[in-house]
């Protein structure tokens, strides 16, 4: 299983798409927002937590359809399904590799982009913490969506439609944790909820995603 994780990382690095594209997209979203709402410092600071979270979420969404599509096309998924490692483990490793190549870089880049949006100084720590807690859930939920749509020809758009409603709780608690942190309020509840969602999705969704892949392969 570790071999699979390392292979996916190697593929992402060599293809160049994994790290770069999601980050560039995140940057562009954050740069475009001030053009839309105007350069006033107060407005930008107020909406910064939400914009950063929505931007990270969209950047995450961008690479979801590639989680299984390439392996499905070149037959690797068939071979993995007949391999001695459980398909649930394959799914979990795929999600982990997706997180390392998108969620983790987004988390690390977020404070820099926070500067552009005049994020409150108190909020930087909460931003990184909430993204670090929440983006694994985004990757895992997205992997489930990718598993549902793996065999479909026009799966990309459908994947977004299926996954975005599932992202709502993560987004709400994540952005709320940063916003409360920025305002100096207590934000333990949203952070705990965020961690709870991540742990629950990591524990349960691999089974649902593996079931979906088995159905799609047959």
């Amino acid at each position, binding site marked *: 299983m570790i071999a699979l994780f390392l292979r996916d990382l190697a593929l992402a690095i060599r293809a160049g798409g994994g790290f770069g594209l999601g980050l560039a997209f995140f940057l562009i979203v954050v740069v475009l927002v001030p053009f839309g709402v105007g350069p006033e410092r107060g407005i930008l600071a107020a909406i910064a937590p939400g914009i950063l979270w929505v931007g990270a979420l969209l950047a995450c969404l961008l690479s979801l359809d590639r989680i299984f599509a390439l392996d499905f096309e070149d037959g690797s998924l068939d071979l993995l399904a007949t391999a001695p490692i459980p398909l649930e483990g394959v799914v979990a490793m795929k999600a982990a590799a997706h997180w390392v190549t998108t969620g983790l870089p987004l988390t690390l880049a977020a404070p820099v982009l926070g500067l552009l949006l005049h994020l409150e100084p108190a909020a930087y720590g909460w931003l990184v913490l909430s993204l670090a807690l929440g983006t694994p859930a985004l990757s895992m939920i997205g992997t489930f969506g990718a598993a*549902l*749509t793996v065999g479909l020809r026009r*799966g990309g758009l459908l994947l977004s*439609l299926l996954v975005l*409603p599932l992202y*709502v*709780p993560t987004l*709400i608690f994540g952005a*709320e944790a940063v916003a409360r942190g920025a305002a100096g309020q207590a934000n333990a509840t949203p952070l705990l909820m965020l961690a709870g969602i991540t742990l629950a999705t990591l524990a349960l969704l691999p089974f*649902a995603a593996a079931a979906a892949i088995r159905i799609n392969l047959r």
Partner: protein
Amino acid sequence: MSLWEYANPQKFMQTSQAVLPAIWGLTALSMVVGLVWGFFLTPEAENFGSTVKIIYLHVPAAMMAINAWVMMLVASLIWLIRRHHVSALAARAAAPVGLTMTLIALATGAIWGQPMWGTYWAWDPRLTSFLILFLFYLGYIALWEAIENPDAAADLTSVLCIVGSVFAVLSRYAVNFWNQGLHQGATLSLDKQENIANVFWLPLLVCLGAFILLFVALVLERTRTEIRVRRIKALIARERMA
């Protein structure tokens, strides 16, 4: 005689054909009685003026929007556990009905919100939850439409329905946490019926019954259609094989 016999498509077609005219008749009757009673024969409420009449549409539609999803969840579980095709097709048949109910609840809510709250749309927890429910219905229907193999489609939509249900409940909690709302709580809720006067409650009860009957009639009718579609597919495939 077990309940599962109705999961046999043939048995289902016979039974539904026998009961459908009666259900459609009852639906029409209760709908006319409920809406005429509610629209023409109820007084205005103290706080709401004549807008209270919207309740006879808004509350039943909202209730059926949620109940339709619950029914789809149960049908999906039955399909995954017992592999009764009728169950999967009933879930598919119910989704557009639930979608329409959600749309009605949202539309009447927005129209009601304008005079009451001074705005068509507020990010009130309940309205927001219904918007999210609307998205869930869209995704569920789109997944059904996208997959060609009918059994795989039934399996995958069932998995989506189950996972979606968990996330829908989670979203409801998250949205509540995110914004405490403007919505009427106890005055309109069903379990606190003592708070609402009988003049409003009785016609509302008739309307609730009417919407339930309408849902049953539509789901039965649409399930019959889905069963026929499956039979057409199977027959055409046999023609090709022969």
